[in-house]
């Protein structure tokens, strides 16, 4: 086993453990936004799309690089935008609170 592979494997395993630890009990209200937020994070695959585009040198590879860039960009840009929209609604709620109380009275 090369040193590089071992380093990567160690990073992989430790990151898995961090992932298990950081995700303790999530209130149900936040489960959908959390899923969407995690979805945006694996949009980091866009970095890989840059890497392969830099190595492309023939038609097949250009097509693959285009596909990779397109897919990854949809994932990362859409993922963060929709998560922020969802969480923005939770933000707005305290602001709407006084208005709601006024409505009730």
């Amino acid at each position: 086993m090369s040193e590089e592979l071992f380093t990567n494997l160690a990073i992989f395993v430790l990151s898995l453990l961090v992932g298990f630890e950081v995700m303790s009990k999530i209130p149900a209200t936040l489960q959908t936004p959390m899923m969407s937020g995690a979805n945006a994070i694996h949009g980091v695959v866009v970095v890989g799309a840059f890497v392969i585009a830099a190595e492309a040198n023939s038609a097949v590879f250009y097509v693959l690089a285009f596909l990779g860039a397109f897919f990854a960009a949809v994932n990362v840009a859409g993922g963060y935008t929709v998560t922020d929209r969802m969480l923005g609604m939770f933000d707005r709620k305290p602001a709407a609170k006084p208005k709601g109380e006024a409505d009730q009275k």
Partner: protein
Amino acid sequence: MSALQTVSSLIYLVSAICYVLGVHMMRSPKTARRGNGLSAIGMFLAVITIIVTIIVEGTIDSVGWIVLILGLALGILYGVVKARKVPMTDVPQLVSLFNAVGGGAAAVIGIFDYLLKGDGASLSIAFSLPVLLDVVIGGITFSGSLIATGKLSGHVPGKPITFPGARLLNVIVVLAILVSAWLMLGYATNVWYVVLALVMSLCFGLLMTLPIGGADMPVVVSLLNAFTGLAVAFAGFVINNQVLIIAGALVGAAGTILTLQMADAMNRSVANILAGGFGTGDSDSGSAADAVPVDVKETSADDIGLQLAYAQNVMIVPGYGLAAAQAQHEVAELAKVLTDKGIGVNYAIHPVAGRMPGHMNVLLADVNVPYDQMKQLDDANPMFENTDVALVIGANDVTNPLARESGNAISGMPILDVDKSKSVVVIKRSMSTGYAGVQNPLFSMDNTQMFFSDAKKGLQEIVASTKQYLE
């Protein structure tokens, strides 16, 4: 390590820290949005770093720049427009779509490197194994998530799709994936080996998702989300980029925990869900065969309007049927009509009401329902005793008193104590059972009246009649 590599590695490390802290902050409603913002900053740093890296290294040619920029621009445009425009009811399928393309991108990277670095030569297992895992997992999440998107949006029937020989076909596909693995790991690179692995993984994703009912889809989407994380991590092994490994593994692990919690909140196990064949997708499928039992009292929109107009405290209990009918605007309008006349209105929100855990809160927040009117299970239950009218809209299992008894499919599930209120009005399309397939004795109780209607149409009629009595 060159200076560039050192700096870029350090920045990647910073962005990895942003992801971990971001996820950590997203566990609490107060910090959730900033958490997502922090994770986005980490992403921005990573993208800037890779841009600088490929410019300095200079291996990219002009066609490479064109395809890269074109792909990114189109992807960003499509993703952002979709994410901005999507109605909140359709968010689950959009997340699933974004997940599909993430898996697709990871698979593309694996195929690219296999073909480029292989070029007919033998590869070490240390390289070809991550490629294989990347392509197989990426392929499964790509097709599986697309089917999940289709099921949630109604383009693919939500009911479990099974056919004779499905199990045998499954076995054949798995064997074919194993054969492709053996070819890729043991032999010199050949484009057809990786094509076989990709096509068979796509088939597997299809076969895995089709037999699962639409109502179980949220858990499946979450599971596939975790899978994509792993695919991205393996793509990181392939191109030797550690930020992909860290972020991918983080999502893989965190997504797994989230999946288990979601399944738990829905009173289902992940193994049961994956076995498939359960649930119809639409709890109120409204088939003609569901006869109305004699002991159920039917009522009209006019009568409900009268009851609401003379009530002091109204509790609205929204469920899956409300989300499916996209009736959140109508519900908010009814509540406004009532509160304007000084009638107290609250919403009792079960943790799994809606299409996904927490989805109902998002839907109601979207139509400006005040935060303090949304009562979670523990706060709502003591309020039912002082409730004059409990208006149950498209909810079923979460109100079923049978959950308090043992020996049925929903035993032990926390429910809303709707039956304790003075009068219960249930708006529902038919008498069909809910997702769990259990009859609901609430519907035939003395103080319960049924209004058989689509949530949206029924609420419009009720708003009209309520206004009439309040004027």
